[in-house]
C-alpha cells in the first residue's frame, strides 16, 4: 500500500468509524443510491459475467449496509463489470448499479484495497495513463503495455499468443505500427493534462484522498 493510500484509508476509517454505508455515500460515485436497493436480485441475474462474481451487486449492497468494509473494497467482484449496463436498465428501483460498481472499484483502487494484480484493475490504469499522456488512446502502445505488464518474458509470450490477431489487424490496416513513434494526440496536450490534474485534485480533496 502506498503511503498516500494508506493515510487516506486511515482518515476514512477515523472519519466514518463503523458506518461504511455513510462512507460509501460520501465517497463513491452514486453511492447515495446504495440504500435504495430492495434486494430483489435482478442485477445478479442480469450480469453477463454474473457467475464470475465473488459477490453479486445485490450482495455487495447488502454487505455495505452490514458494514463489511474490507470485504467489499477488497472484492474482485466490481472488476468483473463489463459496463454492459444491463443491471441499470433492469433495476426496478433505478439504482445506477454500473456507476456504483465503477465507483466502488475506483474507491477501492485509490485506497489501494483492491486486489493486487487484478487484471482489469491493471489495464484500467494503463488505459487512463495512456489517455492522459496524449489526450487520445494509442491502441498499439496500450496493447504493448498490456502484454508487457507482467514483465518482458510474459510479454513476449502474450504477444506471441495474440500474434495472429495482431497480424490480422495489421493486414486490415487497423493497427498502425507508426503509432509507436508518433501517432494521434491532442494539440493542446498541456492544457488537457492541467485540466485533468485539476479535476483530480478537486475530487481527491472532496474525498479526503489528497
Amino acid at each position: 500500500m502506498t503511503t498516500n493510500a494508506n493515510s487516506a484509508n486511515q482518515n476514512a476509517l477515523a472519519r466514518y468509524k463503523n458506518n461504511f454505508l455513510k462512507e460509501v455515500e460520501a465517497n463513491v460515485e452514486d453511492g447515495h443510491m446504495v440504500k435504495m436497493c430492495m434486494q430483489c436480485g435482478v442485477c445478479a441475474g442480469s450480469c453477463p459475467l454474473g457467475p464470475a462474481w465473488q459477490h453479486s451487486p445485490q450482495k455487495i449492497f447488502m454487505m455495505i449496509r452490514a458494514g463489511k468494509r474490507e470485504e467489499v473494497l477488497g472484492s474482485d467482484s466490481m472488476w468483473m463489470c463489463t459496463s454492459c449496463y444491463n443491471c441499470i436498465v433492469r433495476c426496478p428501483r433505478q439504482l445506477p448499479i454500473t456507476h456504483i460498481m465503477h465507483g466502488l472499484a475506483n474507491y477501492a483502487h485509490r485506497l489501494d484495497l483492491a486486489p493486487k494484480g487484478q487484471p482489469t484493475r491493471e489495464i484500467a490504469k494503463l488505459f487512463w495513463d495512456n489517455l492522459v499522456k496524449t489526450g487520445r488512446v494509442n491502441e498499439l502502445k496500450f496493447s504493448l503495455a498490456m502484454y508487457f505488464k507482467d514483465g518482458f518474458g510474459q510479454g513476449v509470450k502474450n504477444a506471441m499468443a495474440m500474434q495472429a490477431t495482431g497480424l490480422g489487424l495489421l493486414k486490415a490496416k487497423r493497427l498502425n505500427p507508426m503509432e509507436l513513434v508518433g501517432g494521434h494526440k491532442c494539440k493542446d496536450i498541456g492544457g488537457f493534462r492541467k485540466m485533468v490534474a485539476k479535476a483530480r485534485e478537486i475530487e481527491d480533496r472532496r474525498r479526503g484522498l489528497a
Partner: protein
Amino acid sequence: MAKKQYAFYPGCSSQKGATASNFLTSLDVVVQKLDLQLNEIPDWNCCGASIGYAEGGELPRLVINARNLAIAEKELPGQDMVSGCPACWLATRETHERLAEHANLLAETNVALKEAGLNLNNTVRARHMTEVLIEDIGWDAMKAPVVKPLDHLKIAGYVGCQTNRPFGIAGESFENPKYLDKMIETVGAEAVKYDQKVTCCGGALAFSEPDKSQKQIRDIVEAAYDGGADLIVTPCQLCQANVEVYQSEINKKHGTKLNMPVVYYTQLMSIAYGGTAQQAGLDGQVIKADKLAAIAKK
C-alpha cells in the same frame, strides 16, 4: 436543401490506422448520399471509455468529456454533437446529463476546464449516429439512395450494449430493440432472428478476462450461425472488433470453425448506396465479408 450540420466526434478507435478506421471510411458515402455535413470537433480528446473509471474517478472523466462539449459549444455553435462510437456517445451524453442535473459538478467541471482555457454552458446535445439517421433523416430518406439492395443476404443485427443501454434509441426496448433489424431491411437484406442481439461481448474485459469475454463472443457468433446469418452487423466499434478479431482465438482454443464476418451498418449502407468495396472499408475486414463485396462488384 442545405446540408444538415453536426459537430462530429470521431473517437480514438475511428482514427486512421486504428481498429475502427473502416467505420469512418464507410461513413463517407453515407454522409454524401444523405446530405449530412460532419464538422470534426477541433482537437477533440478521448472520452475515457467505460474502463477509464478505475483510475479516472468521476470528476476527471466528466471533465475530459466536458472539454469536447465545451469546444463544440464554442467552435461549432448550434450544432448537435454526433458520435459514431457508442462509448464516446455514452460518456458524452452521461456527462451532459449529469452536469445538467448537478450544478455543483458543473461548477467544479468549469474550474478544471479553465486550466485548458475553456468554459462549458452545457448546451450541446450529444447524439449517436444511428439516432441522427433514424430521427433526423428518417427511414424513407435512408432507403431512397439504395441502388444495390442487399438481396438474399441474411444478417444478424447485433446491437450489443452501449448503443442500447442505458440510453438507447428513443422508443426502443432494451431487451429487444428493433431499429437495427429495420436498417438491415431498409438496405434490402433479411434480418435473421437469433437470441443474442443485446448480449455483451465482454467489452474492455476482452483484454483482462479473455476466457470470459471469448465465451460471450462465441455465444453471439454461434447464435448468429444458428439463425442462418451470412454476417453480423453492429453499430458498435468495440463489439465489431471483439466479435470479429477473437474468432480465430476461439477456434484455436476450442476447435470451432467460426468465420463470421462482422461489419458496421454504415458498410451495409455504403454498398447499398452504390459504393465500392473499398469505399465501404471492406478491405479493413479481418474476416472477409465476401458476400457483401460481391454485391459491390455487381
